[in-house]
């Protein structure tokens, strides 16, 4: 009975993990290329969630259509914030970009609160459920999982099969060297920041397909923390590392929930949140390069 329950939760965790992974790729891309930590990461996920909600409620469109729209909005936001703030701070001490991205996150939260209010919202997209024996998986979650995998594959192809992708990879390796070889490093920075934000906003759509309730301007905070744990699991500067980090994190989170629920007198949900914080510290301490890289 317990094993069945655990197996069911692990499958849910794997599906959720794919979404977590996709939701972290933007963070890792931006850190890998610009060496900027986007502390306002969760706020961009929240923007994606509100885009989905608005499109679903106002236009009645299927959330899947929101993915490209959210990506486009993210590209635009990324370019705006890059040219207004980040570009001017690349040479400044780390403190500056940390605080700037933090402030950008607050700005987005407050703007969304101004427009939509701060109450919790949700939408109801009925597409049925699949019974897997050990667990029942809503089709919307399955779509979100497949969507995440497709986006991750597209990013992989863009990175490895296009000219722009190899320019980005060269900057990740060594920006001075790339500049010497004639790569437009400034352009790569702008492009990577925009794509990173685009991916993050798009992931907000997938997150709401998994959990279509609890959408509010401050929902991003929890995702920021999770994204950091996942990014660090994957080595912080590799988007694919982040994707696999997400899978691991989803499994650990759901598996530990099942185990914590066995301990009497505790709140298992709060403890899984605590565990993610402990994981973050432990990994940073013993393997700051991520657990997937073999040195």
């Amino acid at each position: 009975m317990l094993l069945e329950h655990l197996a069911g939760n692990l499958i849910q965790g794997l599906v959720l993990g794919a979404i977590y992974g996709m939701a972290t790729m933007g963070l890792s891309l931006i850190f890998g290329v610009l060496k900027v930590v986007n502390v306002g990461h969760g706020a961009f996920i929240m923007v994606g969630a509100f885009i989905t909600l608005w499109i679903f409620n106002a236009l009645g469109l299927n959330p899947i259509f929101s993915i490209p729209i959210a990506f486009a909005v993210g590209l635009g936001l990324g370019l705006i914030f890059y040219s207004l703030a980040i570009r001017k701070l690349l040479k400044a001490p780390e403190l500056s970009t940390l605080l700037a991205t933090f402030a950008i996150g607050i700005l987005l939260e407050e703007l969304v609160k101004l427009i939509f209010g701060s109450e919790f919202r949700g939408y109801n997209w009925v597409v049925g459920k699949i019974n897997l024996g050990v667990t029942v998986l809503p089709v919307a979650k399955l779509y979100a999982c497949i969507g995440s995998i497709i986006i991750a594959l597209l990013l992989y192809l863009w990175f490895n099969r296009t000219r722009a992708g190899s320019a980005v990879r060269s900057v990740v390796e060594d920006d001075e060297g790339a500049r010497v070889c004639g790569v437009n490093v400034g352009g790569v920075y702008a492009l990577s920041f925009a794509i990173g934000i685009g991916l993050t906003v798009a992931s907000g759509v997938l997150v709401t397909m998994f959990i279509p309730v609890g959408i509010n301007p401050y929902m991003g905070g929890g995702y920021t923390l999770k994204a950091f744990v996942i990014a660090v699991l994957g080595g912080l500067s590799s988007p694919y590392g982040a994707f696999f980090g997400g899978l691991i994190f989803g499994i650990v989170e759901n598996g530990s929930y099942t185990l914590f629920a066995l301990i009497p007198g505790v709140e298992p949900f709060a403890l899984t949140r605590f565990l993610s914080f402990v994981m973050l510290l432990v990994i940073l301490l013993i393997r700051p390069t991520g657990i997937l890289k073999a040195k």
Partner: protein
Amino acid sequence: MRKTVQRYYPLFPVFAAYFILFLVGKNVSGMWQLVSTLLFYCALGQAFNIFLGMTGYVDFGYVAFMGVGTYGMAIAITRLAHVEALGVLIVAIGFAMALVMAALLSVAVGAVALRLRGAYFAIATIGVNEGFRFLIEGAKIWNGSDGMIFTAQLNQILGRETASALSTFWADVIVLIIAVLAAFVTLFYMKSKIGYALTALREDEDAAVVMGINVTKYKIIAFITSASFAGLVGATSWALKTPYVFPPEVFEIHYTIEAIIIVLLGGAGTLLGPVAGALIYGISKYYLSIFLPGFQLLIFAPIIIIIIILFPEGVIGMLKKSFRDSTLMRFII
């Protein structure tokens, strides 16, 4: 002798500002509430500046130390309220608890996080307040998510009148004392080996290491000092002023943001900066909340970005630049 006195000249403007604040609050009717908030921001800014300003490291989990300090006071009061003989001493025990608990947490966090540099440090601290909150709620430590309310205990041991005087007046005076102490410690650190080592670290950590400076040691000193003051501020401004504690409130990241804004606005790493930042931030927030309620963060977020891009040295940093080498500068660092 003259040299040692001159060394402490920069404390004059800081203490003058505190003194004027106190007088205004005491003598102008209806101002005490604003003054009490401003004193809280001054103490918070001074305390946070010891770490953020002097090392250049961003601690996003700073509020956790204030939260733990609040719990320290709460635990002392709830557990010892039945010992009638203690009287006002119970508050002193509460402060000791707050100090010890904040210092212990900072040692635990610092031991892990301070091994990491720059961005990695910031990432490690971003979950400290949330992590601690969820540990308290999840493992149901100290009443878990139910929190603690100790108004009755405080009334019982101090008597109703003293307890009310404590929360409406004396708590603010204690915050003022904490702010004064924090300013003093800041200047003491600046003028000692610790300050020089931290300046070297802030400018170029690699070079500082090469010069044989044990940067980790000085970072930890600044971290623990700053965290201990935060614990005291939490114990006073939160536990004594409003005798209850709930995990979501005392681990709210919002207060870390306010501390960051105050320090940056005034000038990170300067002595007078946090005071200037606290006054500008506190007064503008107070009047914004009257004229444009609910819009404070929406207004402050772009302001942070503008400050970082255009005035990274803050108000006092800019003053220092434009009045360099004048006698006035002896009083401002």
